[in-house]
């Protein structure tokens, strides 16, 4: 039932509104709303009960193992949530005077420093509000850099075929055309193809490393050299930073600019789709172009950067200064983990992924890159199962839900057929991984004995398989 359908005309949660003021001041008649919006008319209990019960229809980290590849669904510390929700932070207006904001600014300044150190970069701007906006900022900086050098011929951004959709979409938003570079059978970028592709038109290359193939790009140094020699810059999509945090700094690999997904690597909650935060970090030559504002430190005082500090900035990306609450959570996380803790993230995320990969191999699943170590994630292809039982990657995924595990990422990256991208993260235990293995073992048997069970799955959730085609054809996107 929709919240609208639970209402009755005239019902309301009366205590929640301020009530009527003495004098009923009027707006000019022609600018005044004539019909009130048809919002739900419900009691406070109805609202609480409705949304509490709705929440119970979700899978989440707090309730399920959630090995969604590329999404780093690790434990979101409740301590970070509390710290970011302190009244001094939560009630702080974004334009509050700097002198009343020193503690807040100190947190952001420290976070800038921590992210610079962790990535091997020189400058950091925290303002991008998600990974994709970080990408935009990064590519816009590359653009600004070339333009400042009057290098107007560079019109193309290269991306590996395995790249996330935001990469090519971003390049286009920045006014570039996109050229895809093929990936070899071992998961590494096709270096020859890259060499052939670079040239004076190359503005830059966007890539993740480890890549979305779940392997570490071994020829990264050569790739960097190739692009740099052609006059292009290297963009690092930090979505997979969890795999190498503290182990390898993107700066050391030759990247010029990157974003981090704090809502992945720094354990801030995804909130059913957002918010995130996608700070950008840059090497020296891109510092002038960083998006603003940035927190600056003079002796003991913190302040916001002004236009004088960054006259060549690509500009502002958000109304205020990005997703502050996410940044505060990430700062808390970094401080609790510290240097050693950040390093352990990469180590145990990688251990879990490789162990789980091995166990799935034991069960007979097919790896996309069987000769490779897993990074913090790995890919299996369910093509053999599709051939044998007629059950595809989605059928397996839906059946897994019945076992109370969230499904891995399906059908991404696009270049591996019937793929699952599996990312267990470092916060899950060996015992949890084994339960997952047991579930897959059982589903494999079901696929053999009763493939219909998979094809019509899920069977135990609030709804069964939904008709996506109908959803798109007969658009029903609002009540009434």
């Amino acid at each position, binding site marked *: 039932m929709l919240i609208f359908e639970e209402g009755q005309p005239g019902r309301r949660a009366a205590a929640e509104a301020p009530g009527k003021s003495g004098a009923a001041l009027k707006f000019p008649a022609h600018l005044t709303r004539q019909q009130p919006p048809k919002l739900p008319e419900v009691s406070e209990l109805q609202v609480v009960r409705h949304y509490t019960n709705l929440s119970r229809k979700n899978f989440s980290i707090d309730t399920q193992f959630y090995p*969604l590849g590329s999404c780093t669904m690790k434990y979101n510390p409740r301590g970070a949530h509390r710290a970011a929700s302190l009244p001094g932070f*939560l009630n702080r207006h*974004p*334009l509050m005077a700097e002198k009343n904001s020193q503690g807040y600014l100190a947190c952001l300044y420290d976070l800038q420093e921590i992210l610079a150190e*962790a990535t091997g970069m020189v400058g950091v701007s925290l303002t991008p509000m998600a990974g994709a906006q970080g990408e935009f900022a990064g590519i816009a900086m590359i653009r600004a850099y070339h333009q400042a050098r009057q290098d107007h011929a560079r019109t193309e951004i290269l991306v590996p075929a395995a790249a996330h959709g935001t990469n090519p979409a971003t390049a286009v938003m920045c006014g570039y055309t996109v050229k895809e570079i093929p990936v070899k059978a071992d998961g590494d970028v096709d270096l020859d193809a890259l060499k052939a592709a670079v040239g004076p038109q190359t503005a830059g290359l966007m890539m993740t490393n480890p890549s979305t193939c779940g392997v570490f790009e071994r020829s990264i140094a050569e790739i960097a050299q190739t692009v740099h020699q052609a006059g292009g810059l290297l963009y690092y999509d930090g979505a997979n930073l969890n795999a190498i945090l503290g182990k390898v700094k993107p700066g050391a690999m030759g990247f010029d600019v990157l974003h981090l997904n704090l809502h992945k690597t720094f*354990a801030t909650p995804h*909130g059913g789709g957002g918010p995130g935060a996608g700070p950008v970090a840059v090497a020296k030559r891109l510092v002038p172009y960083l998006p603003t504002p940035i927190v600056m430190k003079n002796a003991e005082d913190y302040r916001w950067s002004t236009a004088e500090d960054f006259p060549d900035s690509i500009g502002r990306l958000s109304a*205020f200064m990005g997703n502050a609450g996410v940044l505060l959570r990430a700062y808390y996380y970094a401080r609790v983990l510290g240097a050693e803790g950040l390093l352990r993230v990469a180590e145990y995320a990688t251990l879990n992924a490789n162990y789980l990969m091995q166990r799935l191999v034991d069960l007979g699943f097919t790896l996309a890159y069987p000769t490779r170590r897993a990074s913090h994630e790995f890919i299996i292809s369910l093509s053999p199962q599709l051939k044998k039982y007629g059950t595809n990657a989605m059928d397996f995924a*839906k059946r897994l839900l019945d076992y109370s595990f969230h499904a891995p990422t399906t059908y991404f990256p696009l270049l591996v057929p019937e793929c699952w991208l599996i990312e267990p993260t470092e916060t899950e235990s060996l015992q949890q991984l084994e339960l997952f293995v047991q579930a897959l073992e059982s589903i494999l048997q079901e696929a053999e004995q009763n493939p219909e069970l998979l094809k019509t799955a899920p069977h135990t959730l609030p709804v069964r398989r939904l008709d996506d085609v109908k959803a798109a054809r007969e658009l029903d996107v*609002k009540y009434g």
Partner: protein
Amino acid sequence: MPYIPHTESDVTQMLAALKIDSIDQLFDEIPPSLLAQQLNIPAGLSEMSATRLMTERSTVSDKQLNFLGAGAYEHFIPAAVWDVVTRGEFMTAYTPYQAEASQGTLQTIYEYQSMMTQLTGMDISNASLYDGASALAEALLMAVRCQKKKKGQTILMPAQVHPFYRQVCETLVKAQGIQLHAVPYDDAGQIDQAYLAQLNTDEAVALVIPQPNFFGVLEEVHALTDWAHSKGLLVVAQVNPMSLAVLTPPGQWGQNINHAGADIAVGEGQPMGVPLASGGPYFGFMTCRESLVRQMPGRIIGRTLDLDGKKGFTLTLQAREQHIRRSKATSNICTNQGLAVTAATIFMSLLGAQGLAEVAQQSHHNCEALIKKVSAIPGVKARFDSARFHEVVLELPVAAESVIAFMAEHNIQAGVDLKPFYPELAQHLLVCVTETKTESDLDRYVASLKQAIEEAKN
């Protein structure tokens, strides 16, 4: 090891299964020259110490009496909102890619979309964009795509659109060759219609109409909408959703029956149940005319049926999005501001149309009350003589900067100095008053302002 559950024996067992001796071996594909040294980051803290650190830092900003607005508004948020929003099932879920395991989030967004279309009077709502500023920028990009047949790519952008919003638009649209043409404001603090009347609009594709505008002033939305449509421009409404409880919604702007209503309406969703929180996470909302939906950026949730014919919810029209269309997507947005949207949905359910109207009315009322009180101070008066919502530009006899600094000493955040944004408005302060302020708050403000002015004059 914080957050890592592995015991020594777990690790031993796992390494044995992998036939390796140490975790380090798992990184043996990485060229050794790339491996980092120990990070120069402070050692880890316990939850207790980290909490204490941040508590100490947060208290600096505590207990300010806040009259700042300018795009982020302090409204009272019922406790039920965030108590429910922060349930693990809402907070720690990912984007609802597995629809059957995400019906909670999906239905919530469907309800949100329904509420936003009601509030704005528009046909279709998406599931959110980052914030009000980036939503406006996305609306401009969308407008340009919708007007592909037109020869130009110019957007008419009033000067009294939030200065930061205009900056964000600059950043986000300029790489695509889109121009923002500044439209001046008149003496009433409204879009200068005389200026528009003489404007050559051949290159223009859309007019942005802020309601209320950055000065808190209400625009003549009907006349502007009709004018824009008569010139073949799309109307992009940039609205405060709280104001729509009492003001004509964008879907009903204009008197031209063949083409009434704004074409795209966007805004900052923060007033609807999202705390000030130093600037975010907030959320940008976007609604549009049905015919434009395929150019809309961001996720959209649709209702459909399951195998048993039972109603359910799922992501729809994904062919607009980056994960399907890649370089041909309507935007690069992926992660949005879902949790803030959940809060807004619960907030709107709790307040209802009547509650929102009360909040809007009471805010307006308190703003007018403050204006009356401060006007008694010599040299202080409201700058524009137009109908307002809940913000006002005060003309002061001294620099706004000094007043702000003085009042901050007394834990009052007095308002926003307009000089950096509008050099012509030196000695002008943008002040916001919402329903959260009591008579005694207003009196405290007035007394402090008086003192600040005297101080500055000496």
